[in-house]
Each structure stands twice: as C-alpha cells, then as structure tokens.
C-alpha cells in the first residue's frame, strides 16, 4: 500500500472520529433536553402535559422515520445556510446532529423511565424543585444507562458518517466509496472496514467501562 493511500486512510479515520464526536455532542445537545422533556411531560410525571408531549413526540417520530441518506440530501439547503457548503466534514455534521437527536431523545426518555418512581417521589417529598430533581436525581441516577446510550449513539454515528461518504461527507466512508468501490481497490475497501470495526470496538469497550464505573446499583 502506497504512502499516499495510508495517508488517505489516516486522514479518513481522523475525519470519521471528528464527525462522530462532534455530531454526537450536538446530537446530545439537542436530544438530551428533548428526551428529558418527553419524560417529564409523560402521564403521571412531574410536568405532565399531554399536548406538548404529543407534539414533541410526533416531531421526534417524523425525524426518526426519515432514512439518513435521504435526510442528508433533503437537508442540503439548510446545511448550506448554516455551514456555507454541502460537501465535506463540516457539511456532514449538520444532518448527522439533526439525524441523531431524535434517536438520542428516545434513548434518554427510556433511560429515565428505568429510574424507580419512588426516587422522584422522595425528592418531591424533600422539597426539591423540578430543576433540582433533573440535576440531582434524574441525570445522576440514569448516568450508567446514559453512558450506554452514548456508545450506542456514537456507533450509529460511525455508520451514518460512513454512509454520508457516498453523498459528499468526508471520512472513511468517502475513502471506501471513492477508492474502494469506484476505484475498485480491495485493499483500501478492506482497510476501511477494519478501521471502522476497530473504531466501533473502542467506543463499545470505553462505554462499557465507564458505565460500569458509574453504576452503584
């Protein structure tokens, strides 16, 4: 394998990692509050509100139904206004973040549902304000499960970003598509595959380790 190819793979790996982490960050920035909102507005919860729950729930479901590859293309005008281009790593970040946020919201909602309702009741009985309950009860109690959600999300994002490579995103996906598929280079294709597998394994192992570390149940 030539130096330039190795360089390409290295560059691609870095780009994939950047896309995964940055869009994961923005995904959580959008998804975490949405998930908390979905949980709190549920029936019998702290801020029970059927109408707002339904509205947000429907929006989340709509975005989750759109296949990612279509979302990227569909969002191009929006992506252009935000980052000024529809090609490359920066452009991929927009659909990746938007695409993962509703997914994250549902994961977060589920994690919060696992918390025994008695804990929220106890916090209310002690005079905790809603924000205090979120900060001091819901998030810390769900932390191990939230960490698992982070690994699930990041692994999904590795896949999404690779998919995005076919329609102009950077990263390993693009390398694999352009040089492996279009250029018909098996060595590059397989190297991309191995690199993606390694990346996924590292994320999973790190997630498991951290989740275990914070689990005192």
């Amino acid at each position, binding site marked *: 394998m030539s130096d330039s190819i190795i360089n390409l793979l290295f560059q691609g790996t870095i780009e994939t990692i950047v896309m995964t982490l940055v869009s994961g960050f923005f995904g959580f920035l959008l998804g975490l509050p949405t998930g908390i909102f979905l949980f709190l507005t549920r029936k019998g919860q702290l801020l029970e509100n059927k109408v707002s729950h339904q509205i947000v729930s429907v929006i989340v479901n709509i975005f989750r139904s759109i296949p990612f590859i279509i979302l990227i293309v569909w969002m191009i005008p929006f992506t252009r206004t935000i980052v000024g281009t529809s090609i490359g790593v920066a452009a991929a970040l927009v659909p990746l973040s938007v695409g993962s946020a509703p997914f994250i919201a549902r994961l977060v909602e589920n994690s919060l549902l696992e918390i*025994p309702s*008695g*804990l929220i*009741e*106890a*916090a*209310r*009985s*002690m*005079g*905790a*304000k809603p924000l*205090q309950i979120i900060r*001091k*009860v819901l998030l*810390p*109690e769900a*932390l191990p499960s939230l960490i698992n959600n982070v690994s699930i999300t990041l692994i999904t994002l590795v896949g999404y970003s690779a998919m995005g490579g076919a329609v102009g995103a950077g990263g390993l996906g693009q390398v694999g598509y352009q040089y492996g598929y279009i250029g018909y280079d098996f060595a590059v294709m397989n190297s991309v595959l191995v690199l993606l597998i390694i990346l996924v394994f590292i994320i999973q192992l790190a997630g498991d380790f951290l989740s275990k570390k*914070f689990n*005192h*149940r």
Partner: protein
Amino acid sequence: MIELLNVTKSFKTKNKTIQALADVSLTVEKGEIFGVIGTSGAGKSTLIRCVNLLEKPNDGKVIVDNVELTKLSDAQLTLERRKIAMIFQHFNLLSSRTVFDNIAFPLELEGKSKSEIKEKVNGLLELVGLNEKAKDYPANLSGGQKQRVAIARALANDPKVLLCDEATSALDPATTKSILKLLKSINQKLNLTILLITHEMEVIKTICDKVAVIDHGKLVEQGNIEQIFTNPQQEITKGFIQSSLNIELPLVYQNSLSIGDSGNNNPLVKFMLTGNNDQSFVISNLFEKFQIKAKVISAQLEYVGSLSFGVLLVELQGKNINEALAYLENEYSNTEILGYVG
C-alpha cells in the same frame, strides 16, 4: 401539628372512579406518634400522601403547623415540604450517591455550605449508628441500614413532622423492632411528631400513642391505643387486634380434640383479656366461684401502656363446667369453645 379536615380524594380510571379517601378528618398533636392502620387498598397510602400533598385532595383542608398547605402555590408548597419529612417502605435512597451524600441531599437543596453539611451529616450518622458506612453506596447496605440512612436523611432539615409510609413493611421482625426503637427514641429526643401508616398491629402496639383505623377510605375508629386495644368497637379493628394475637392449639391437642361432648370430657376454651385488671385473676376466680381448675394450654399477653390484654386458651376441669362457661361468656370477650378433650 397535623390536621386533616374532611379530606376527600378520588382517582379516575378509564371506566370508573375510585374513592380513595372519603371525608377523612384527623388531628395529630405535637410530639405524638399517630398510627393509621388498614389493609392494602384501604386508602392509607393516599392518606399519608395527602399530608405533604404528593397527592392533592379533591376537597378538604390539610394544615401542618398552622400552615394551610392546600392553599399554597406549587412553589410555596415545595419550600414547605422541606419541613415535612417522609420515609418509605422501599427506602428510596439514591443509588448514585454514597450514604453521606444521600443524607446531604436535602441540605444541598437548601443550599447549605459544605462545612455546614459535613457537620450536620456526621451528627446524623452518629444518631442512626452508621458512622462507618458513610462512604458506602446503598447497594451494599442491608434493609435495616438503608432505612436508617433514610431516617437520617429525613431528619437533615430539622423537620416539624415525620411521615412514615409502611417504613418497616419490607424488613424482617428483628430489624423492624430496631427501626421502631430508633423512631421512638427520635420522637422522644427531638419531640418530633410522627404520623405513620402500616398494616401491622405490631407496629401500632410498639410505638404509637394514638391509632386510627381506615377501611374503604373512611376512618372508622380512632383514639388512644389503650382505648382501641381494650375496647374496640368495629369488627375490622377487632380483626387487627386478633391478628396481632395469634395462638394456635398445640399439635398434641389438635389430635385428641373432639367436637362434641361425650359426657365427661373437658372443654377447651379460648377467650380474650381486655385490659380490665380483674380479668387477669381469671384462674383464681374460676376456682373460687365454681371450684373449676383451669389448665393453661397457651396464652399471649401484651402490654399497651399500663394495660394488659391478650388471649388465653385453657382446659376446664371440674363439676360446674356449664356455670363456668356461662361466667366466661359474660365476663370475657370472644369466648369460644374449641372442642373437648378426654
């Protein structure tokens, strides 16, 4: 200190309305331990949750320490709840926090400084006897230790009242005793008013000053425990008292017992003593009045305050059996002939 006035609460499900509390009124004086007993589904959980308005009543007033909680806004209520502590059947400790941090939780809500928190929490750990467990997580504690942590947490904000929601129902009998002892000592040391709910008469008997019986959302009977234990009016109350006194016929008698009297058999009689001092002399009374020898087979006596009550199972021997039986039926409650032995 706690006053419920005509509190009513119902829950709506899809096709019917369940009346959880119907016109419930009760008063708990300062420094008192007040117990509410009822079977599951009687409404006792709803009752105790109506005191700190975790459940909002449909109607009626809730007054704690002269503050009418039912009139407050949500934000005011949240602050008022900090003085109304509560402990739970399943402890409800935060699994992500150590014992120390769990107890610190209500102090953090108040925005107390680190040093204040440290001093207060260490004092509370001392009070509940868990100094050595300060850095442990709840998962590593026994049930009794978890409830001790919950009690310490409840006391952190120097509450005016403590609500106990089936606090000992998930614990074994020995641990139950030690937790009740702790609650009693806290009640005496801090003059803390306690309202508890339970389905076990044992709990009421051990620590309560007053008791109320709840059935189908209504308080059917309430009063001092001496009064209720020795002179229960309602069937359900009698049932609770009897369930706390269970004596069984020893196996050797079960086998030789016959239902009818074949002529010269001796009756086995069970009857209750209900706190009347004279009743305790039943053995000598039977002998002096009817020359009946009463052989004690099984007995259980309990003390509520200075009054004793209990149940006695005796075999009557002698000639004037019928007169003796009539005497027992007149003077004692729940007199019952279990059978005859040869």
